[in-house]
């Protein structure tokens, strides 16, 4: 064995591989952990995340399930109550609505309904987001809905480190945790440490420091915000970019600290605008940061339509870098 003390070289991988490595680590470390979901075994996962895991860990731990989200999510809850640490994969958040009863009425409430006797240490992973021309039944971003529910945590890893690290922290949590993986991010490549550090799942992070405006986003939108910030910097506008990382619980402190400095905030969210997580964030800024604001909070969200299939329409429906730049300039200068 060659595990000398020397600094491990960073490894190059995709977001998909980072999630897979996280799964492998969990499966290796804790034999109570198992993965189940539609096509996770023989097919290797609808998005190829669990490719090779069936061969490596066997069919007891990588389980293909019938096409019945309610059933296998409920089975996951039962297994968690029975002492296991199940990871349930739901192909996309649109399909998770079939399991919404299990998630809300059972997983999120069981600790309460049992008078504090039974935690549900369940992790559910799901794909989310649009931009791949999968049309209106496979492309929505409903993570904001789940962030409405007390009793669960809602994680939205955007970076490779978080994709790699959040799963284990989630498994250690005694209560249900939902992890949303934006399917556009699976092909994102980069370097991460070969020995990744554990990550927390309850704090937002400032991904880029700035003084003029706070761009608040998460998941795939984070990179649109970062791209916009780069362009704005060339024009002398320094945007601070915050990655929420976790939609429930929201890290108000990081947001408000940033706004106390910049006095302007834009929320970029792939979800629909009405009744959304962006609305919740805007309300909190109003409640707790009103006197720091110099202009009204703005939101850049998905158009309020079922996600179109046609590429140009789908792109028009999603938040875009150009819109972020235009919005920020208007806020900073007072005119378009």
């Amino acid at each position: 064995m060659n595990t000398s003390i020397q600094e491990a070289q960073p490894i190059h991988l995709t977001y998909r591989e980072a999630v897979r490595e996280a799964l492998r680590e969990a499966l290796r470390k804790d034999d109570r952990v198992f993965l189940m979901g539609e096509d996770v075994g023989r097919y290797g996962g609808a998005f190829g995340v669990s490719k090779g895991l069936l061969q490596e860990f066997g069919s007891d731990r990588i389980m293909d399930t019938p096409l019945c989200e309610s059933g296998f999510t409920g089975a996951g809850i039962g297994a968690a109550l029975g002492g296991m640490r199940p990871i349930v994969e739901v192909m996309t958040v649109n399909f998770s609505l079939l399991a919404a009863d299990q998630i809300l009425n059972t997983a999120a409430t069981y600790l309460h309904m049992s008078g504090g006797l039974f935690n549900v240490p369940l992790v559910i992973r799901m794909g989310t987001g649009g931009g791949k021309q999968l049309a209106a039944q496979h492309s929505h971003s409903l993570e904001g809905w789940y962030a409405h529910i007390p009793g669960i945590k809602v994680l939205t890893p955007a970076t490779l480190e978080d994709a790699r690290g959040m799963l284990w922290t989630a498994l250690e949590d005694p209560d249900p945790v939902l992890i949303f993986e934006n399917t556009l991010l699976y092909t994102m490549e980069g370097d991460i440490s070969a020995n990744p550090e554990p990550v927390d799942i309850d704090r937002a992070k400032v991904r880029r420091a700035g003084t003029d405006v706070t761009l608040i986003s998460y998941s795939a939108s984070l990179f649109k915000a970062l791209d916009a910030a780069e362009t704005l910097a060339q024009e002398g506008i320094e945007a601070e970019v915050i990655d929420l990382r976790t939609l429930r619980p929201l890290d108000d402190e990081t947001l408000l600290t940033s706004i106390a400095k910049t006095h302007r905030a834009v929320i970029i969210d792939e979800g629909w605008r009405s009744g959304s997580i962006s609305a919740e964030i805007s309300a909190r800024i109003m409640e707790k940061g009103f006197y720091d604001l110099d202009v009204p909070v703005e939101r850049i969200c998905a158009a309020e339509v079922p996600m179109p299939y046609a590429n140009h329409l789908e792109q028009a429906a999603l938040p875009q870098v150009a819109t972020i730049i235009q919005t920020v300039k208007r806020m900073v200068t007072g005119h378009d």
Partner: protein
Amino acid sequence: MTDFCMPSLGADMKTGTLVKWHVKPGDRLKRGDIIADVETDKGIMEIEVFEDCVIDELLLKPETEVPVGTVMAKIHSEVAKKVTEAKVPIKETAKEKHLIESTKPPVKTTVTSTPVTTDGKRLRVSPIARKLAAELGVDLTQIKGTGAEGAIQERDVRQAAALADKVEEPAIERPVEKPLETPAAPAKLPSSAEFQAGMRRAIAAAMSRSNREIPHYYLETQIDMSHPLKWLEMENQKRSIKDRILPVVLLIKATAKALTEIPELNGYWIDDRLQVEESIHIGFAISLRQGGLVTPAIHHADTKSLDELMAAMRDLIERTRGGRLRSSELMDATITLTSLGDIGVEKVFGVIYPPQVALVGFGKITEQPWAERGMLDVRSVMTATLAGDHRATDGIIGARFLQALNTQLQTPEQL
């Protein structure tokens, strides 16, 4: 239980030093009783309680200097629990300092609203700009916003403040009042250079704020004092020398009664609107021997008789020079009156003491030729001036006031 806090004894007071407690835990106090002596830039003040209450705990040691709003003692009311907040502007923490500065007598809760321009349009001001303007003393109605639809934003306020700093003139010093009556009371105030510098700073802060924020208008009128002086002379013949009434008392009473007719000049400009006060408490400018001046209030001047007013003024002058003023006397004035006639000044153009909205000035009474009904006569004439806050009132109100003042003075027997 309620907090008894360091009161603000004037818009410019930021801290106070506890000199001594007049009470101990368990003591029962009536409204108006003295709870403690507090030293400020203006001298040592006796602090009163404003409701009947019982002292539970004293939290401050003498010789401690604390910011306005700091809890000094725990008390409870035996009646209800709305104890001292009724009158003393407390509770505010440093966080809300701007509130203290603009809310001198906080008796009523006022709904603050965005400033309105002269043509009645609601100004669009961002929250941070509004906060900053209050901190920097910037008048939002004088700023042109550069934000969307003309909204005033942080940068506009900063720019205006920077500009104001550049052109700021040296603070106009309020003319110092000469003693009207000098009961021989030894000045007990500490007369160290430090104390005087403190008072100078306090005056400078209040007057700079006045000059920066208040768009003053000035009106003057000549008042024939022949009849009132003659009447007073006859009145005084009925009194022993020590009880005689000074002419200035007529002026105080006439001012107070004129204000009952023109109440718009009696009150405060707070939160961008005029708040007319029902009670008339005339702040009377009194100079201190070691320099500087204070303007303690003569409470309810409109309802006091001339003899009561004379006694009140005598007492006030004595205690002012002795440094024994009460907190309410420093906080309550609803208008200021300054008389410089005794040292030969003919007209007084006053600087309003914020957040008040008017200052009445009286000059020397001189014999002058006076033409009336085609005849020339020699009369005792005095110039009365009014400095008004143009945000709160217009010249016509001021003119009506001076007219009412004259009418009051011409019927001294009704004063």
